């Protein structure tokens, strides 16, 4: 009989194993903690990749709150009901919409996918609305109008009006009802979608013409050059992008849980319902010449300025009211303290009234045809193009 040496037992049990187990353990982050997540389980290759190397300690602190904590958050429930979201959209998805890639780079837990989906839906609805409602807008104004409705600044404003607040710093312990974003993160580069980095950005000391056609082809949805390096106010920009990504992610969540029509209704009631003064976006170079070219193109009589009324010609503050006529039809009217300015202003007003032509307030857009029992499509008025 072999002698038992109980004195060695304690040592065996108390000693930590010097070498790690040879069987690969499943990733702590991917499987153990977040089994309640709304995202599908990652593929096996991903798991193997995410296994920590030998000697590396597992991170104790998660970058964002756990999905199951969403059910306990009062802020999140309040936000859900404030937005009148459908019951089909779980609180966990809304919690995920609040986690930006700058807080949690893992795309299985941040809102990057939902925000990309949402941004395409928002931009589609806004662009078709602008095209049908103001068919004669020049491309530059079209881009600015698109930015005014669905640009990062506007969407950030919308999310602030919804009552979304940002956490002081992202982390596991914060309330899931707060927006999680960090301004000093390197993960912001991954949030750019659409557009190409221009080749000439590398060559510093040369001037390149950035025309409208190349903006349409190369640049992003709002006609801005894709260049992450040179943002003027980086903090403000990242903040706006983070807040706007929540709005986009909510639209993406509505689309994936409730369908296309619910997403369209949401976009119409929250984004397209805002008022934009398009006439303040114009900047002209040579308005008198542009109006003359317009009249020549459309076959109208050449424009002629006529002095409709004046007061105080010899005083310090005269006022002239000038009307622009094409034949006997009046095109526009402007008033200014000098004859020349009044004429130019009248030309600008005439051009604005040309560009801002709208078929009406209730325009039909192509996506209306997807509804059940829609009337046959009647093509909207599409202008032949800008005045050159």
């Amino acid at each position: 009989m072999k002698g038992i040496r109980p004195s060695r037992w304690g040592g065996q049990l108390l000693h930590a194993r010097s070498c790690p187990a040879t069987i690969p353990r499943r990733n702590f982050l991917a499987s153990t903690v977040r089994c309640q997540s709304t995202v599908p389980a990652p593929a096996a290759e991903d798991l193997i990749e995410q296994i920590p190397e030998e000697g590396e300690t597992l991170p104790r602190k998660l970058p964002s709150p756990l999905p199951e904590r969403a059910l306990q958050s009062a802020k999140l429930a309040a936000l859900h009901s404030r937005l009148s979201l459908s019951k089909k959209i779980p609180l966990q998805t809304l919690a995920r919409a609040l986690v930006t890639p700058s807080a949690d780079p893992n795309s299985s837990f941040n809102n990057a996918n939902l925000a990309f989906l949402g941004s395409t839906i928002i931009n589609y609805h806004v662009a078709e609305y602008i095209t049908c409602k103001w068919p004669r807008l020049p491309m530059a104004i079209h881009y600015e109008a698109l930015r005014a409705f669905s640009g990062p600044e506007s969407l950030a404003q919308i999310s602030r009006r919804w009552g979304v607040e940002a956490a002081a710093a992202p982390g596991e312990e914060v309330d899931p009802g707060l927006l999680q974003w960090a301004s000093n993160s390197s993960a912001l580069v991954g949030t750019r979608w659409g557009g190409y980095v221009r080749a000439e950005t590398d060559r510093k000391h040369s001037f390149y013409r950035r025309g409208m056609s190349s903006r349409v082809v190369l640049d992003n949805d709002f006609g801005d050059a894709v260049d992450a390096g040179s943002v003027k106010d980086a903090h403000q920009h990242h903040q706006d992008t983070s807040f706007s990504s929540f709005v986009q992610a909510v639209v993406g969540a509505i689309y994936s849980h409730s369908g296309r029509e619910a997403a369209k209704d949401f976009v119409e009631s929250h984004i397209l319902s805002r008022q934009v003064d398009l006439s303040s976006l114009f900047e002209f170079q040579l308005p008198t010449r542009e109006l003359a070219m317009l009249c020549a193109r459309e076959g109208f009589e050449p424009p002629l300025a006529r002095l409709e009324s004046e007061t105080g010609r010899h005083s310090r503050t005269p006022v002239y009211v000038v009307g622009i006529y094409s034949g006997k039809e009046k095109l526009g009217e402007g008033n200014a303290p000098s004859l020349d300015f009044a004429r130019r202003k009248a030309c600008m007003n005439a051009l604005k009234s040309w560009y801002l032509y709208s078929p009406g307030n209730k325009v039909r857009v192509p996506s209306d045809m997807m509804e059940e029992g829609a009337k046959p499509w009647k093509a909207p008025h599409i202008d032949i193009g800008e005045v050159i």
Partner: protein
Amino acid sequence: MDVRTLSRPATQLLKTTRQTTLLPLTTSRGHKTTARTKRALKIAPHDSFLPNRSQPFPAADHIIYNPPASEASPEHTPFIFLPPNDPRREAIQRMRLSSPEALGSVAGASPPESDADLPPAMSYPRRRAHYNLTEDDMAEMRRLRNEDPLTWSTNALSKKFNCSPIIVSIAAPAPAEHKKWLEDKAERRRERWGPIKTQAREDRGRRAEMLYRGEI
């Protein structure tokens, strides 16, 4: 009546001269108290603000509509800017035919019958296409310009060939050294300006930019 209106300015002139010569300057009395000021400033409202009293009874319903004097909004498209398939075009045409006076001064109001009813045209340099120049004219223009750009300036050539100066500057541009000389001359003149004139010129340019952006 006519005689009185004609003679009135002359009599007033006589009166005022006599007053200024004989009487002290402050003859008219101001409204020294609040009550007197209020009474003096009490003006009856304009007719358009008052209810319609054309019928004694029952009082006719009407809407008081007194929009402030303002510029027309660019969202009101003028009649000729409406595309051919727009329903507003037909509606305005129908209204013009049926009741021309009903539209008043609305954007779609019917235009006056003749040019005499329109406001006076302003005089400013504007494009009047002649299309009177031939190939030989262009060659002659270029020859003159190259021979003596000082005598045959843009304006001189435009007068000689009866075309606009812009056509001359496109068809027969001055030689490079002449342009350089003109620019230097203008630069020397600009250098002689004092600070006030320089500032005034800058401000004028800035005002034009603001105008084009719609800020003033």
